[in-house]
């Protein structure tokens, strides 16, 4: 079986990535997905079909907020930014993720 190189992201993980990305500043949807792709060296590619539903969900939960602004194209675009609660949520989720991945690592390394 060939490794296609694509990894399917779980919903919770996607939320975490989006929150982390937005913690560096406010950006629109396109930028978010580009940034994640760049930093992960194209390993993590977020389909638009998952990105926007996730963004709207995070917005509804109050962790990010959105505003219309002018994009680099000169067109309107919706810019997302982290809220205070979002910041707190980011901390919680980061910690959960680190604990989770450490645990998985332990299990993988066992003999």
């Amino acid at each position, binding site marked *: 079986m060939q490794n296609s190189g694509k990894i399917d992201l779980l919903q919770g993980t996607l939320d975490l990535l989006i929150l982390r990305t937005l913690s560096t500043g406010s950006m*629109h*949807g*396109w930028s978010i997905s580009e940034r994640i792709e760049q930093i992960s060296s194209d390993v993590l590619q977020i*389909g*638009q*079909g998952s990105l*926007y*539903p996730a963004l*709207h*969900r995070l917005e*509804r939960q*109050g962790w990010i*907020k959105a505003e219309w602004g002018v*994009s680099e*194209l000169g*067109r*309107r*675009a*919706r810019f997302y930014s982290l*809220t205070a*609660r979002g910041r707190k949520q980011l901390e919680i989720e980061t910690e959960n993720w680190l604990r989770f991945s450490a645990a998985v690592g332990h299990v993988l390394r066992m003999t």
Partner: protein
Amino acid sequence: MYWKQPFQWIRSLLFRSRADSELDEELKFHLEMTQRKLAADGSAPVDARRQAAILFGGTEAVKEQCRDVRGTRWIEDFFKDCVFALRLLRKDRYYTIAATLALALGIGANAAVFTIFNSVALKPLPVPDPASLVSINRTAPGTPLTGLFSFADYLYYRDRNTVFSSLAAETPEHLRLAASGSAGLPVTTAEPLVGLFVTSNYLATFGVHPVVGHNISPEDDARTAGPYPALMSENYWQRRFSGDPGVLGQSFVVSGVSVQIVGITPRDFMGTRPEVPDIWIASSALGDPGRRALDRTTLSCALTGRLKPGITLAQARAEFAVLATSLKNDYPAQARQWNVLVSPATRFANLHFAFMRLYAVLQIAMVLVLLIACTNVAGLLLSRAATRQREIAVRLSLGASRARLVRQLVTEGTLLAAVAGIFAYIFALYAMGMISRQISASLAAGGGTMVIDLTPDPRAFGYVLVLSLVAGISFALMPALQSTRVDVSSALKQEMAGFGFYHKGRLRGALIAAQISVCLALLIGAGLLVQQSLRVLAVDPGFETKSVVSLQISSPQELGYTAGRISELQSRLEQRLHAFPGLVGVAFVSRTPLDGNVTTTRVTRADAASTAEAQRYPYTYISTDFFKTMDIPLRRGREFTAEELAATASVAVVSDALAQRLWPGEDAIGKHLAVGSATETHYYGGRAPLSSSMEVIGVASDIYSQDVVLPDPGALYLPKPPSEWNAIALVHVHGDANAAAALVNEVHAAEPNLAVNAETLSHMIATGEASATFHVSSIVFLAIGLLGFVLASIGVYSMVAYTVTQQTREVGIRMALGAQRGQLLRVLLAASSRWIAAGLVAGVVIGFTMVRVLGTQIPQLFSGAANPWVILAVSLATGAFAMIAAYFPARRATLLDPATVLRWE
């Protein structure tokens, strides 16, 4: 920012289109950026756009997901479903009308019954602070029946309780208004009145005051002679005397007692009675108050009390339990095993249990009808869902979830039910108004004013709404689940339903069977009731009814006659009557059999230990020639003689049953009876029989004198005291249909100012309350049964029509292959007839059980063995109708041209 949530939510809902266009814009932006990136990487613009679009995936799908996330989805869906459903319903007009009609009838019937129940039992009494009014009843362990108290017991409770600020006693009676004391307000015939004998604190207990005049005063509770103070209801005052203020202060004679009107009670005030009484009379009119205070055996009073402020019902219950026990200890002989029931006062105070049972029966019947209606509509829905098979399959293939589709179909059904519910409510109000007017009119014969308040009530409306929703969801769910369990590919290819969907055929068949069985059960119940009421009409009460006229004559005492003149008038009247052409016999009695009045007394053998524990039997004072006049055969002995009457001899005639009971196997003639007890009173100043030794001189056949269902357990006939005015004359005239009118003339010829009420006994019985109950019940049940029948027929017809339509292709093929029409018909009908037969069997079983159960609950109506011929006839009729309903669509299918059928798509 949780507080923002509801705002966002509402905003999403209201500004849906704006939110949608914003989303659109956002996604377009993303697409454009992707394009630019691809172009920058080296693809041609056209390719870039295409690539971008592919990468992007279905825009619509993304939008859908985003919308889902918004959380307002289900409301939007609901509105969409409603709009779609409305469009569909409008398109299939006939189906919509049929289904709405069926549902409206089913729901409407239920709403009607509930409205009556609500207005009679649930609505609080229209008096100040109804929650603190309490009814007190006597109960016995083991039966749900409640009873009345004696006046002495009432005094006991009144004087010893600490929980009531006021405790009143009432005694209902059917009375006759005989004459007015002055010439100003003529009363020409003896009119029936509904009366209530009350203690002076009765109105105060209810918090009600006379609108004109004044109340009965406390001193009148101790009155020993007439005229007794009385109040008239405003309803009666307006109806009978047109609100003439001259009524106040007037004296009337009511069933031999002189009363004077001192006040008028407010319109529609009826205490805890089922109807508005015409007259309230001071209770001292029932008999000497001193004697009544000691009489613990005459049970005639219902009690109503008002709790003191701050006292709860539980406290009252506790105290009365203690009082009841101490009463039993103080008077062990009379109190027996009775307990006391303290409950909130409602309209049908001591008829509560009987009424509740009747209501329960009606409600069950109505639910059954609704069930038929629902299965009916479920069948229709199933048929329709099947014709929409293709649409459903397409939707499923486009990615709709099954849950979503089921939701849509159920919404459709519920919408239908809601619309039907509105019609049902209107229909119910209208029907109820009509029915209550009918009932009032037919019961008005006995006096009183029936007031059924049917103004629309939010509670009733809420009930109808809930019922509609429940009905809608329940009958839409099954077909919805069924039709979405579809093999998508074969449905898209439009394969015929007859071949692969056998499980659906079972559901359809089961629905047919269910409708038929419920309908049959109802009809069996109705048939039994009709049978009973016919039997009641036909029952021979043991005496002549058609040719005997009862004359109720007012007393000349009110006209100012002296005792001497009275007896002279009496003999003159008797002479005239004896000379009447065609006369068979004349007798004077204290009460007419089956007139609704029953007087009872204790009867034992004279050599028995005491009369205290003896059984009670109905008695009548009679004159000579009674048995000849009434055509009651005398088994042994003879009638009273004139000399015995004049001397008030201690002689008696007993009925056969009584003679057998007291002296089994022996000849009762010459034996002696002990009758009555010293503490008993008789109403209206008349004498209760009391004798330690009466000789039996005759034994008469048994008759029905109390009601038309059961013969008397035994009857006693006593000689009429000569000093009493003969208020009721029974005249047996041979061959004259208009005897009644002629007899009235005879009486008036003797004394023109006497008020006379004349009617044949058969007329009196037929219009009496007992018969009326039967007639009303049987009509109601018959109507219900027919309603169910109509619904079931519609159901069967539509089901079979649908089945046949589905099998049209198969029919065409068979016909093309040479099958005969008759054969095809048989095949088409075969399955349906199996289900119809199953339904009939189930219906007989259910009907039988239902009648049995009802027989234990309401024996007066449902006792008596169900005639097996009736059941057979009804079953066959139902089966025949069902087969006819199935025949027509089947026949139509076989008449089709096979070529057309095969070409049909």
